[in-house]
Structure formats: C-alpha cells, structure tokens
C-alpha cells in the first residue's frame, strides 16, 4: 500500500492504494466520481478520459500511483454551477444518446477548444478520434463541438 495525494476538481483526496490500482478505478471507487466511465480494457474507447494536469488522458491506462501530486479534472468538475458551454452545446445539438461516451467526449472537446478555439470539421474529427461513440455516428457530436466554438466566439465578441 502506498499513500497518494491527488487534487480532483479542486478538492484534495488522500488514500492508501495498492500499486496495481488503475487510476480510473481510483476515481470511480475511491473518489466516488462515477462520471468517468469504462468501455474497454485496452485504451481504445476514451470513455475514461479525464484532464490530467490540463491534458486529456485515458485514465484506464494509468495507475493511481502516477497521479500522486497531480491535478485532475473529471466531468463532474468541468463547470462550477450550471453547465459548461460544451455541455450545453452537446444537449442543444442532440449529441447525446445513451450518454456513456459523453463525459469523455466532452473533455476531449474542451481540450481541443482550449488549444484551438475555432477548429474546422476535420480538426474536430481528429481530436475525438480516440473517443468511441456507439450510438450517434459522431455527426451530431462534431456539430455540437463546432456549435460550442461558435458560441464561445459569440461570447468573446460581446465582451467590451
């Protein structure tokens, strides 16, 4: 057992963990943040995506120990009160069906928009290439991300 200290969504967590505990299981079972999902065992689906020191990672591909001292954002920590514009855009563009891929998709989208606030369709498709969605066929997700970028632009313009 090893002690780790992680900051998740602005809150500090401290636990004794087994060396083999996966980060995704730590987040889900120790921190009890169940918005981070598991859809495969090989790092192919992206359902477990979280922001790790700001970058999107697949939390099933890391062990909890690697997160010692890290800052993690999960879907639950994306917005303070209410919804983040990307979350709103997903709902406005019918980008959600069963919702299982949604948290990972949204975090990948947020990370894209941070580095590239006005992506074109090809860039959006590339950014979510590591996130599988079995329900939507991706089109409405791609449109939602473009819509979120549009919305952000609108907000920018409205600033004095």
């Amino acid at each position, binding site marked *: 057992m090893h002690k780790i200290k992680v900051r998740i969504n602005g809150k500090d967590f401290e636990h004794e963990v087994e060396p083999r505990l996966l980060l995704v299981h730590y987040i889900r079972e120790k921190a009890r943040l169940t918005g*981070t999902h598991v*859809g495969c065992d090989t790092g192919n689906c992206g359902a477990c995506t979280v922001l790790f020191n700001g970058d999107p990672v697949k939390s099933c591909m890391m062990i909890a120990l690697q997160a010692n001292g890290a800052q993690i954002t999960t879907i639950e920590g994306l917005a303070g009160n209410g919804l983040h514009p990307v979350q709103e855009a997903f709902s406005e563009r019918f980008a959600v069906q*069963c919702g299982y*891929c949604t948290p990972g998709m949204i975090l990948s989208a947020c990370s894209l928009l941070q580095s590239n606030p006005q992506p074109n369709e090809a860039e959006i*498709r*590339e950014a979510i290439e590591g996130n599988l969605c079995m329900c*939507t*066929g991706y089109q409405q997700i791609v449109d939602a991300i473009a819509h979120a970028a549009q919305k952000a632009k609108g907000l920018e313009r409205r600033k004095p």
Partner: protein
Amino acid sequence: MMKLEEILVTRNSVGKPVQRKEDVKFVMGKGAYVDDLDIDCHHAVILRSPFPHARILKIDTSKAEALDGVLAVVTGPEVAQQTKPVPPRAITKPARQYVMAAEKVRYVGEPVVAVAARDRYIAEDALELIHVEYEPLPPVVEIDDALRDDAPLIFEEAGSNVLLHDRLEHGNLEDAYKEADLIIKEQFRMHRYSSTPLEPWAIIAGHEKADDSFVVWANDQQPGRSTVNVCNALGISHYRLRFIVPDSGGGFGIKLALWPYIVFLCLLARKVDKPVKWIQTRTEHLLAGTHAPDAHVEVELAVKKDGKILALSMKDIENDGSFVHTSGIYGLIKFATLVGCYDIRATRAELMSVVTNKGPTVQNRGVGKPTMIFVIERMVDIVAKKLGLDPSEIRFRNFVRPEQMPYTTPSGEIYESGNYPECLRKALDLIHYEDWKKQKEERKKQGRYTGIGISAGIEPGTSNLGYYYTSRGVPEYMGNAEGAIVGMDYDGNVNVLLGSVDTGQGHVTTTAQVVADMLGISPDRVSMNTQLDSLISPFLGHSGAYSNKFNDVDLGAVIMATKKLRDKMFRIASHMLGLPEGELRLKDGKISAVKDEAKAVPFSEIASLAYKKILLLPEGVEPGLKEIAYYKNPVAKLPSKTDFNVQLTHSNSVHAAVVEVDAESGAVQFLKYVIVHDCGNQINPGIVEGMVIGSTVHGIGAALYEEFVYNEDGQLLSTTFMDYLKPLSIGLPRFELAHMESPCPYTLLGTKAVGEGGAIGSLAAVANAVEDALSPFGVRVRSLPITPEKVVRAIRETREI
C-alpha cells in the same frame, strides 16, 4: 382507432426538435449506470473456457476458496444441478444447455466457474488458482465443418448439428418460374459482427436471506422476458424476484441475453452476505457477449427480360454458435423483409440453424434484415447489370407502388404505408445521381475508381413475437404490447412509468412531448422514470426495448393511460364547473369552458379534489389521479405457417453512397452519402436524425471494418477494439438526410420504426458502390467486410470480395 386530433389537443411539442430532458444528467456525468449505483457489494468474476469444445473432467476450486478475501464460488456442475436448462425459442431438435457449462464447454469464453470476492482484484487473483481438467474435443467452427457427415456433434442428443431445418413456400412459384425469361443465382456470405454497446453488460444480484428472494439490477434490454427466464431457471415464483433496470449505455439487441448470467449470479449471491456485482470486461463482451451470426445465403431470382422480378428462392444457413435460446430466430426474422421493397409474388425459403463452437448469437440491431436487404439489394444490382438496366431503373420497375399500400407480401407481412419510388427519386436528386455518373467516367480516365451504390431497405418495427414458432406449435409469447402508468400530482404535474427501458433512444423526452400535447401543457411538466422496477412498473412478458416497438406499443400504452387520466379530469371539471364535458376544453394547464375562458379550473384544483377533498368528487368517481393502461398492436396475426406477419410496422429508406476505391491500397473512401428516410410521423426530428445516422454507422462498420474472426481451432482472434475495428469519427462521410412522412395507419400517432433502418440499408449501399467502382476489374462483392486486403486481392487475383 383514435384519430390524431382526438389524441393531441395541442401541437406545441410533437413533431418539434425538443431538447432532450435526459441530457443534463448525462453531460454532467450524473448518469446512474449499474456500476455507478451506490450499493455495498462483493465483486464477481468469471472463469471461462479456453477451449472451443471440450469435456469437463474435473473442477478444483479449493485453492481459490482458501485465498484471503474470496467469499464464494459456483461451478457449472453445481449450477446445472440447481437450475433448469436454457429454454429454446425456435429450434426443433433437443439440445440441453445450462446457463453455465456443466459437462461440456461449447465455445471459447463459456462460463465455467464464478467467484465472489471482497474486491475485483482479489477475485481476478482467485481465477488463477482454479484448476479445471478438460478433455479437448475436435472443434466445429464454420458452417461447412458442422454440416459434414462425420462432423463431431455439439449436442449429442440432437443427432445433428442442424437444430432447425424448415422450408416455407408462399405464392405460386411454378407459374412464376414458367413465366420467367431468366433465372439468376448467386451466393453470399455474411460475417459475424456486433453493435457493441459502449457500456458492457453489468449486473448486481442481491439475496434476501429472510425470505429467500432476490433483487437484481441489470442493464437488461428485455426485462419482461428476462424475469420469466430467471425465475423459471431458478424455479422460484415471480414475486421473489425484483428486477431493476437503471441507465443503460446502449443496447442494440446485444443486451437481450444477460439473463443466463443473472441466474448464476443469483446462486452466488445466495452464498454471501452482500449483493454481488459483475461488470463485464470488453474482452469478455467480444468473446461471449453475443454476436450476429455468420451466414451462407444462396439466392435465386426468376426474372422477366424487362427486369420484373417474379419469384425469389433462398437457402439460408445461419451459424448460430452455441446458445440454444436464440438459435434459429435469425432465419425466420428475414421474412419481415424477404422481398425487400419489391412486389414479388412468390417466394421459397429453406432455413437452417447450425450449431458450432463459435460464441453465442442474439438479436443484433436489425436481426437478419441487414443480411436479407444486403442480399436482395446486391441481387437487384446484379440483375440490372445483366439486363443492361440502370440500378435505379430496375428498382423503379419492381417497387411496391404507393397505391398498393397496405401491401401483403406472399408470406403475410403487411407493408402498411410508404412511397418507395418517391423515396428513391428524392435520394437520386439529393446525391446528384446523373452528375456523378458522368463524373465517374471522367475520374476513371485519371485512374480514380469511383462508384455509386444505391440500396432501398425496409425497416420493420414491433415484433409479433409468435412468428418463429411456425415450426414449434403454440408459442409462449404472441403479438406485442406494453404497459404504462400516468399520474398527476397535487400541482398538476405528470409522471409516467413505462414497462419498457431506455438504452439511449430518448424515451423520456419523446414521452413527455406526447403527454404534454395530450394535456395542453409544456413537456417540462412531464417527468418519467426511465428506471424500470418490476415491483412498481407496469409489466408484461413483452416489456423491453427491442424491435423498434417504442413508437408503437410503448407510446400506445402511454397514450391510453393519459387518455384515461384526461377523461377523469374532464368528469371532475365538468362537475366543478357545472357544465357538460362537451363544452369544456384543455388549455394551459386548465380545463375551461369553450365559450367563456374565465370559467376554468386549473389542474391543481382538479387534483385537489381527487387527492384531498374527495367528498366533493362527482358520484361514481374514484379518488386519485393515476391511471394504468396496456396497449397491444392491432394487426399481429396468430402464428401460422402459411400467413404470418413477423413485424408490425414498416419504415423504409434509400441509402445512396459515392465511394472512391484506391486500387493500390484497397482503401474505400466516401465522397458522398445520402439517406432518405421514412418513419411516418416524427415525434422529435432531432432524436430521429441521431438514430438514423448512428444506425447507419453501425452498418458501415459491418460493411467495411468489423468482423469476429475465428481461426480454424475455434479461437476468437478479435477480442479487443484493437482487432475488432469500430468506425471512428474520422473516415466517415458527412451524412445528408431527407425525410418523408408516410403515416402508419396502425399506430396511434402514425409513427413507425426508426432505430434499425440505417444498419439495414447501408451494407448494400456500400457494397454496391464498391462493386461499381471496381467494375473495370470485374470484381463481384459477395461478402463483407470490404477490407483493404480483400480489395487488393480481388483486383489482383480473385475478382471476388
């Protein structure tokens, strides 16, 4: 049947892209899937067979049981002793199988032992300590292996590896063949694939020691049938099983067969002091989480010189793997689309369900209809080519015409509505068909191989569950129906409970839209528990989300229950206002006098009488405002071999694709993709669009990427998403959609099926486009997926994919 105007008093919600009510929780990560439930559990893992076919000689679990943290174990032989065998639904030969392997294992991945431990990691460690002694038997992998005279028998008691063999003829074949100018024969192969919901199977089973009852939480798509199956297998009466379905991360038919696992997890739960949780891994899911069967289809069309198709004969052999519960149903489901969109007067079908040592099969999205439409739509193209007709022209010459609706196929399927020629015309327009035909020739000169593919598909909905017992006598389930409870609270808000479950289709929103327009309120005032609980939800053996039944019987039940509620509210309001019901109407959450809006009672006051001031209720009206209704589809026929309808509504669509094939690398690239879809009246176009595109991508995955590959030893080679390739966000076309709305005369809202059509029509659109692109090489597409290796090999050597 009630008219639309009688059902809906306002049209503020139905037909509009109302934002989904479910979304807020999902985008916040607050969905509550089985593994998210805050239930104190032990964890179960499963030891699975490494052999495709072997006798179990000995199972020793003593070392595993001694491991610290391990709490209980159940083995196959123990399960077989304590449960009834798996009931077959369609096969006619005897085949005894239990929910866990007892004497023999019949596929790689078949459960042999289940272990419960304090945590998942310990349980996994325990698996290593279990010793099973097997006597390997020769595996039977492919259809041809199973049919050989000296093939090893997978179920000895069946005396054959063919568990169902049936022949059905409908219409006057003799005349049709006599009249025909030519007979065109082909053979096709369908491969194994699955729609692989992103959330794998998940089950929690709890045992109440005080009264030996069970509570189960599972992401099961068909809880109606599953409760029956679980109770029967365990030999307990139904009140001793409470079945709860929370949020579910996709289904597509692949979550119809959880019940065998529920049975042995219940036995495991009986041995321990807490509920037992089992979360399937992706590898387990791909190995044993059920597939669509692979199949060989021989087909023959009797055709006139002008392209008119007179008869269709088919021999369909399904490799149903080793799960006797569902073996045999794929072949019969094909009757829902046996003649596709065409007016063909005579059909002959020979159906065989073959058992092999491949994994279990269940009803994957479209169930057999993707194969059937693939076969017909490929055949129509092949005939067109032979006769020198344009692929669109041969379709126009054979389509069932709108004036023939409702049209009955030779076997008795009723196509109730649709305009197939218009649907194709629209698709040709939208894709700029003539323009692409020219461009194709231009591009060929530059060495770019471009092809256009069209596919016209039927999308049947609402299963008439009795159909596949044509071979077995009186069925256990017939027809289709669902139940709903609609209640109003003290404030005039509405809550709905449904027997069905949601796996991503937006039932909450769609239901709220319908109820809102029936009561003249906003959908914000209608809530629904997607979560099914067998103790409180209305419930039938039919209950569940499958065969696109939601738009028909599920909403039918909601409508009938809402109508009962509304009728009662009118009686109370009439009494309160002293006016006859005929002079009242619903508006803005009130019932008011038609002539004088000032004379009105808000819903909350009506509720107040119903719930509190009950002495003021009119004579003969019961207190309370909660109504239950069950609704059954009106056109389901009784099972019969000569005249049966497999499914009860029929949407249709045309898919048109333009692709370019790289002759060097074999890669297929989409240049354009058009879908014209007709699901009757739409309740929420935003949801419909998502389902059409999502479903189409399932078909494209099957057409280009996905395949469960077994080697000759019966080992599955594609057990992760690294080998089992799903469509990604890149590499797909931008889909252009257009809609037609031919209302269904047999559903209350004129709605029809929507979730499966894309997965049905797309396979042939892609295949036809690829064959067209490769026509300079004379390549014929007879199988899927069209992988780059196959394309290159076809161009260089075989002329066949």
